[in-house]
């Protein structure tokens, strides 16, 4: 056994420990350290391998990558974390796809290796364009609403089938190199088509799924290069992405195929939206009084809080109420925001203690005993239609039972529908008060009112 093989085994152990230590906030930073050490050992081990002759290109490449990567990590605002993940996934997948392509042109391999190369490049190229599309939607360079058209499902399936078909042909006839670019273009096209029908609210699932693809692509590379470390790291990443997307799907009571091909929210948006049922609204002054009188307050943040950058003001509000003896907690829905756990990161950034961030299943039993629920920029995840209306597109989706609280206050710009395009019955309930305005501005005035009182 050579030295590099030994280092690879240590690197694999580092990755496993990294995931193990991520299980709790107390050990999570140690986990990152283990992951970094693992990666360092992997790179050092590879550089020590006898096959490596040219170090100049490698050194330049690594320095260049670090120069691009570090500023992204340092300056990216926390609201931009989903976008960064998407673009970072595109980078990783691009690397994997290009390595497969380079191997193909170098060796024209046969049999099992060629099969692994095709899997690697297919997943890689699909993930590249899909991640860039996801980035575009998250960054709102592209429309966030689903883009659907007649026969979309069949066109997507046809492109995928053509890509797989060309791939199989290449596995059987590796010398037919003129077909390889066709295969690449088909894979890239499928990546674009895959994301077109997906709306903003489904992004948590999709980002997790693409994460899984990037990992599996690295895993297939491990088979092509006969490298166990790549297989292990890729499989860990692949299973992680898959399990997260399953959790996200469950949290929306939807299946994978429904998320990927559903075109969620298109039809319903046209039906509702013109409704003019009466609602009750309140001024910041009135709202502040109600909050002050409460003994328990649960704040439910949603993507709107991220858009309005209101997390710091929300924390000030929570502090002001805590000072007045009110028990304040945050209820976090698994799919609130644009990626798994998005709200937790934003509130942690705003310095909210993480033991105040309560998961859905733990907070729901407390809802009937809660004096005031304050909904900030969330919509579908508190829509009682999920429980009461079996014909609703979100029927069966687990929600935060905000409507069971004694008083519900909803900060919202207007009566517009949410990302799923569904009207929210919560707003018309007798115990609901609408607080119209920008989430940040309204919270600021609430804090002022509380300070004055």
């Amino acid at each position: 056994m050579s030295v590099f093989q030994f280092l690879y085994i240590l690197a694999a152990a580092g990755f496993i420990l990294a995931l193990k230590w991520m299980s709790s906030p107390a050990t999570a930073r140690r986990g990152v350290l283990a992951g970094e050490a693992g990666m360092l050992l992997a790179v050092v081990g590879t550089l020590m391998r006898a096959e490596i002759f040219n170090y100049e290109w490698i050194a330049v490449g690594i320095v260049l990558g670090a120069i691009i990567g570090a500023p992204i990590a340092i300056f990216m605002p926390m609201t931009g974390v989903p976008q960064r993940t998407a673009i970072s996934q595109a980078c990783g997948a691009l690397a994997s796809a290009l390595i497969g392509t380079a191997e193909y042109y170098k060796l024209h391999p046969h049999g099992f290796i060629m099969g692994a190369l095709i899997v690697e490049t297919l997943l890689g190229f699909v993930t590249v364009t899909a991640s860039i599309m996801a980035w575009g939607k998250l960054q709102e360079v592209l429309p966030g609403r689903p883009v659907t058209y007649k026969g979309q499902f069949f066109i997507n399936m046809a492109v995928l089938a053509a890509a797989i078909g060309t791939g199989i042909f290449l596995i059987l006839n590796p010398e037919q190199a003129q077909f390889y670019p066709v295969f690449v273009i088909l894979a890239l096209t499928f990546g674009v088509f895959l994301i077109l029908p997906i709306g903003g609210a489904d992004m948590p699932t999709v980002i997790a799924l693409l994460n899984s693809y990037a990992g599996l692509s690295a895993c297939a590379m491990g088979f092509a290069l006969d490298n166990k470390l790549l297989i292990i790291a890729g499989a860990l990443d692949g299973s992680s992405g898959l399990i997260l997307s399953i959790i996200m799907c469950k949290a929306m009571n939807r299946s994978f195929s429904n998320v990927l091909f559903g075109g969620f929210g298109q039809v319903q948006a046209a039906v509702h939206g013109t409704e003019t049922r009466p609602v009750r609204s309140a001024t910041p002054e009135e709202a502040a009084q109600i909050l002050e009188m409460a003994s328990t307050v649960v704040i439910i943040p949603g993507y709107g809080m991220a858009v309005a950058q209101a997390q710091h003001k929300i924390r000030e509000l929570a502090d002001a109420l805590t000072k007045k003896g009110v028990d304040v907690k945050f209820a976090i829905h698994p799919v609130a925001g644009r990626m798994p756990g998005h709200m937790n990161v934003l509130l942690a950034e705003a310095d909210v203690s993480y033991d105040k961030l309560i998961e859905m299943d733990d907070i729901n039993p407390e809802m009937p005993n809660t004096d005031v629920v304050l909904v900030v920029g969330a919509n579908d995840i508190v829509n009682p239609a999920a429980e009461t209306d079996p014909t609703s597109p979100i029927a069966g989706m687990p929600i935060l039972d905000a409507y069971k609280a004694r008083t519900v206050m909803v900060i919202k710009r207007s009566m517009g529908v949410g990302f799923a395009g569904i009207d929210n019955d919560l707003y018309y309930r007798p115990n609901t008060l609408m607080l119209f305005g920008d989430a940040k501005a309204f919270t600021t005035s609430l804090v002022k009112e509380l300070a004055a009182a």
Partner: protein
Amino acid sequence: MNYEFGLYVFMLSAFLGFELIRKVSPLLHTPLMSLTNAISAISVVGAIMISGEKDVPNLSRILGFIAIVSATTNLVSGYMITDRMLKMFKKREPAAK
């Protein structure tokens, strides 16, 4: 039958991954995704192999170089932002009574 061995490694790591990830609190799902995203930059190993070998055709060398740059971008930004996020997760002690 080296591939058979590889498939065993894959199967065991996938199960291990499932078990480990299931234990991660939803609180940390975003940093977890950043971390696994950074780990998937392990493809930098393959990129180094392609770029560093003797007598590689120019096309493969160029592709390998681009792969090193993008994998390192993925790796560096992934680990750094994960740590930046985790630093923010703090438990504030309740004020003394």
